[in-house]
């Protein structure tokens, strides 16, 4: 299977490079080729959309217009890109005025877009197109005994009518189980990590992250699996600041779900990029490496 792929800024050359490389590697094992969308640009991004909505929509629509030439689906591993591109589709459908302005912007670049591209998150493609059984079939090292908190974040399941339940999503839990791991109970699984507030309102963001780390640990998780570059950054990079601010001692590795899949599929450091994780996963994953 071939799929048109939108890495987004963090998974291509940004802080979540390991997410990009592990997504590619894991997809390959699953006989899926992620073909990067040529000449893509910023998705419009959630912080930017609240600052200049129209420009953000136009940026986003340009990606969709490019993707339209490549097929029906556009796959992204980033929750923020997923929401932004989907939102653009919805806006263009719902607000003819906005569509006219965006159309004008696209026309200046010789592009047209009619709303037909379906934006998919990589998790959705893995569990719904490829399926749990096909994933289990590729497992070389069963993750038996590994306790994982399946963390969806706030974006990938919202607004509702996406591919999973907004309050009690299950797809990542089941995926972890199809790798042989144990998805622990994690009531805060679709709560906000703090998002980009970590820049402007650090205290609020750190408190949100603290709650997540606390809930994961108290439910016995050894690591947290995420589906979003920003969630990973907040929980991993800012974990030491959480510890400092709240006088806690969290040391929970925060893994991209594709890294976890890679371990189970027997892939190596080169593809999975564990060395970029701040809180080391070495100890937790030692027996599976």
């Amino acid at each position, binding site marked *: 299977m071939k799929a048109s792929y939108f890495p987004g800024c963090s998974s291509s050359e940004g802080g979540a490079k390991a997410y990009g490389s592990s997504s590619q590697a894991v997809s390959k094992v699953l006989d899926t080729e992620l073909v990067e969308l040529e000449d893509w640009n910023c998705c419009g991004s959630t912080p930017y959309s609240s600052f200049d909505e129209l420009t953000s929509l136009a940026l986003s629509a340009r990606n969709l217009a490019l993707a339209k030439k490549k097929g029906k689906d556009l796959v992204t591993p980033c929750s923020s890109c997923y929401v932004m591109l989907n939102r653009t589709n919805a806006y263009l459908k719902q607000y003819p005025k906005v569509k006219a302005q965006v159309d004008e912007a696209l026309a200046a670049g010789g592009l047209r877009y009619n709303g037909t591209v379906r934006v998919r998150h990589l998790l959705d493609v893995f569990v719904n197109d490829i399926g749990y059984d096909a994933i289990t079939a590729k497992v070389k090292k069963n993750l038996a005994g590994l306790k994982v908190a399946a963390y969806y974040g706030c974006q990938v399941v919202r607004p509702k009518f996406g591919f999973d*339940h907004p*309050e*009690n999503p299950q797809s990542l839990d089941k995926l972890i189980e199809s790798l042989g791991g144990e998805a622990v109970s994690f*009531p805060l699984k679709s709560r906000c990590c703090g998002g980009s507030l970590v820049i402007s309102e650090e205290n609020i963001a750190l408190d949100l992250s603290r*709650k997540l780390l606390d*809930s994961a640990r108290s439910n016995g998780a050894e690591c947290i699996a995420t589906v979003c570059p920003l969630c990973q950054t907040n929980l991993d990079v800012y974990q030491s600041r959480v510890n400092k601010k709240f006088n806690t001692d969290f040391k929970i590795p925060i893994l991209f779900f594709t890294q976890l899949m890679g371990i189970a599929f027997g892939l190596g450091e080169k593809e999975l990029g564990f060395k970029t994780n701040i809180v080391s996963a070495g100890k937790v994953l030692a027996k599976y490496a």
Partner: protein
Amino acid sequence: MEERRIGVYVCHCGSNIADTVDCAQVAEYAKDLPNVVVSRDYKYMCSEPGQNLIKDDIKQNKLNRVVVASCSPRMHEPTFRRALQDAGLNQYFFEMANIREHCSWVHTDRAAATQKAKALVSAAVRRVYHHEPLEAREVPVNPNVLVMGGGVAGIQAAIEVADSGNLVYLVEKEPSIGGHMAMFDKTFPTLDCAACILTPKMTIAGQHPNIKLLSYSEVEDVSGYIGNFKVRIKKKARFIDEDKCTGCGRCQEICPTKVASEFEQGLGQRKAVYKPFPQAVPNKVVIDAVNCRHLKGRAQGKDICRICQKGIPNKSIAGCETGAINFDQKDEILEVDVGNIIVATGFQQFDPSVIYQYGYGHLPNVVTGLQFERISNASGPTNGEILLASGKKPEAVAILHCVGSRDANYHKYCSRVCCMYSLKYSHLLREKLPDADVYQLYIDMRCAGSGYEEFYERLQEEGVNFIRGRAGEITDTAESPEEKDKLIVLVEDTLVRRKRRLPVDMVILSCALKPRADTEKMARTFGLSRKADGFFLEKHPKLDPVATVTDGVFIVGCCQGPKDIPDTVAQASAAAARALALISKGKVEIEAATATIDEEHCAGCKVCIELCPFKAISYDETKKVSRVNEAVCKGCGVCVAACPSGAIKGKHFTDEQIMSEIEGVLV
């Protein structure tokens, strides 16, 4: 052919039509339409002077066809048809142009609306030209009545009809009548004990000489029409000889199989042979074939258990002493004839587990309203003591309103009774646990009813904490020592604009009342329509709230929409009165606009028989043609459109009439 002399009457309907349509202009226009002799506009055509206009013109101007351009025919077609009859014309020489619902109410542009009204009048004039005289027929009314559903609505309706001396078949699918009301503890706002006021009625229904109680039974099929329905009822095997069972309860004491009790909402247990609750009517047990060891074994060819029947001889425990247990009993099919049907199938409680964030089903001590009724009920699993799953008493309880109601994700409608029963719960909590904190989380308080607002005020004085806000979540993730081992309700108090975390021990979800899961099946069986919210549709929401689109079938209680006990009982009595009115008249007039089959052209393909929604067409084996039973035919026209050889004609909807009508719109 007789000369056509048509009269046209354009109604203003006060300002309803006249504000948007230039009625005088329409009347003026109609004067030039072919065969129109008189054309007038008038303020209220349905009024007596309005009708007299028509009657006088029929006499003086020798009209033989009449068109009234006014509202929908649903309400006033019968009014004007009567006016024609009074003036000596056949009532079918009448046609109505709907220039209100189809025109003035849906348009704002006066010129365009007037233009449209003219087109509609022109269509009606051309159609009425071809109208033929038809005769409405009368059929006798069978005085028996079927009541489907044995909750308080069905019980009330059955007793009212039975007291008049007519026979009632009261059909209930559960082993006992009583419905939801039998589960309740107290009733708002009077705080009468529900059982104390319901069980006497249940007993009357069970013993009434004119009520044939068919519990544990289902209606499988209804055919026929108003005054003359045939109903097929399945009496499910109870595995108990009802004539022998005395309801002593010995069998349920010794039965070894325990399962969750439906009546106790899963909070208590019952046996495989059981009476759902002590005051059950009929006072007979039933064997639950799914869980009974003997019946399960029998399916695999084994003969086991039979303890209820034989007892445990080596412990000198005797089994059923009257020999009432009969494992060989089979489902029975009964056919009954009735003239009227009252549907009182009730509601179903919304299942809150789909609102995952409220924790029902995975957090202990989050309970539904009906569960709390049982917890608080003296005959319930805790003997009326309000206890947590751990057996301790709660120190704080939160009651969440509008769970599944007034929520675009689930049901948009207000369930009408939740505010009041939530207040009742608060009262019971304050009474039984004076030291406990009680929180009510509401969106708006809706306390419309006799004594309801007063009850709300009383509860405010009783020290209940009212918080305006819909809870966002119930969690057991504690963030402070006070929250440890508590359920924390997250809510925005919208009056003080603050987010709050309420640590409580028990949460009661005041769940929506929703249509029963089998509503669609029931709708098909009884020929009913459903509203957008899923409940059964009444004939007119204001002026005919218990009748339905199928004449002779009435709907009462919560199957028509959420309502409280007083409204339910009032509706039940209303439907009984409607049925009795038909019975006392003894005969009923049925629509003449039916289908007829031209036997010369009928090829006997039977397409029409399959399609007829009223089962009005049968096949004549000797002549090899289909035949319409005009008493059953509703004139819907499905067969007319479907007949491949064009052999079926819809009276009052002939091709000629419809083509002329279309032509009239287009000129």
